[in-house]
């Protein structure tokens, strides 16, 4: 239905514009330069999320199946998947506060879940932060 560029290609073009054209042009204004850099990074984030598609949502859904102890089919429609994830996270919050994860084994499983979830978020939001941490852990003396 749409001619090219694709959504991703068009956004990549805007990213190029902000980084290569606008950024040098605002170099004299510290405030504007910082905001432009942040805008460029925001576009890069959106591109990563677009490229990752529905897979991270499905992976989180399956992890929630495990930590909530019930299997629910992953919705076919991505919008339903996002709404469903919000609902399931709300449930998880309720259960945490009700003390359902206070026993050591369950707490350890929950912790593992949260680690994977936050790392999955950062794969999209700021992968270089994860790389920095990995580098640091590698260099840490035993």
């Amino acid at each position, binding site marked *: 239905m749409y001619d090219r560029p694709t959504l991703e290609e068009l956004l990549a073009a805007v990213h190029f514009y902000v980084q290569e054209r606008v950024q040098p042009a605002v170099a004299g204004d510290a405030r504007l330069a910082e905001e432009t850099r942040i805008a460029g990074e925001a576009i890069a984030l959106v591109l990563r999320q677009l490229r990752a598609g529905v897979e991270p949502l499905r992976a989180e859904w399956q992890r929630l199946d495990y930590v909530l102890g019930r299997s629910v089919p992953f919705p076919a429609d991505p919008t339903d998947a996002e709404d469903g994830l919000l609902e399931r996270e709300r449930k998880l919050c309720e259960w945490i506060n009700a003390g359902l994860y206070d026993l050591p084994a369950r707490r350890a499983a929950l*912790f593992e879940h949260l680690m994977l979830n936050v*790392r999955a978020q950062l794969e999209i939001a700021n992968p270089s932060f994860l790389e920095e941490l990995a580098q640091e852990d590698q260099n840490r003396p035993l």
Partner: protein
Amino acid sequence: MNADFRQRLTEYLEAVLELPDADVTRLERLAGGTSRESWLVELKKPDGTAQTWVLRRDLATTYADRALYRDQEFRVIRAAAAAGVQVPAPRFYCVEPCILDAPFLVMDYVSGSSIGREVLERADLVDARKGLPAQLGEQLARIHALDRAHADLAALPVPRATFSPAQEALAEMRAAILRLGVHNPTLEFGLRWLEKRMPACPVPVVLHGDFRLGNFIISPRGLEGIIDWEFAHVGDPAEDLACISLRHWRYHRGDQSFAGMSASAETFYRAYEAAGGRPVNRAAVAFWSVWGNLRWAILCLAQSRRHLSGHDRSVELASLGRQSAEFQLEMLRLIAEQGVNDDV
């Protein structure tokens, strides 16, 4: 807008200084600050003398209930200055929104850099960096020795009756999550983990509340001033002691756990204790390190809401929402270090 700003500022300064024909010869927006703007103001008086000030103006909304109003912050800085804490001399403040659209305060300009990355990287600051852990420890001990009963400090937020500082801090985080209406299992888990490990604090003290790189002005001579007192409150000294080591303010030098510097936190603690600070409670510092990351994870979400609400539209504020995960991960890593199940 800039011309109008200059005009209104000039009229205000003429009025408060009782100086007709004062001339604002320089007015520049300084970099940094998502909750408020800083302006460099150079004023030339009719007698030819010049003064350089920094004017800090609130942006449209405040994002944290705990943040002080400009007049309160002004008084805290004045009390700190009187007690020998290194702060830029406070000059005046104005809470009338009709002057510059928002409350503001004016203090002396102090030369040096407060930008964290510069402080850690600039070659001409190498000697300054060596002295910082001891200077900061000594300064923090002075801050914590401020008299809570002093008239300028009497209005500082204190833990509600029967609450310890840790209880108060967790209650505030709980309230902030409720206000935001988010259901984030990581934040809930962090809160619950902290709730079971609250340290006692026999003697709550006056805290800076945001004691970290970014809020220290450094020149080749060393520490020149401690700024940004809007989060001052009464609480556990370990909160300030933990703040300076939070990962985010190591500016990508994560393995250098004391403020991204090669010194160890022990140098800082020793200077703090030698200058009269109470013995550093390491377990309490560990608790407040986890709390500090939880707090910033929540503050990031709150900042993005300022944009989303339409009050303060800014791509920087919007982006902070996605940065929350960095603080969440650091919080989880610190919990893992201390033991997810260390209480059983």
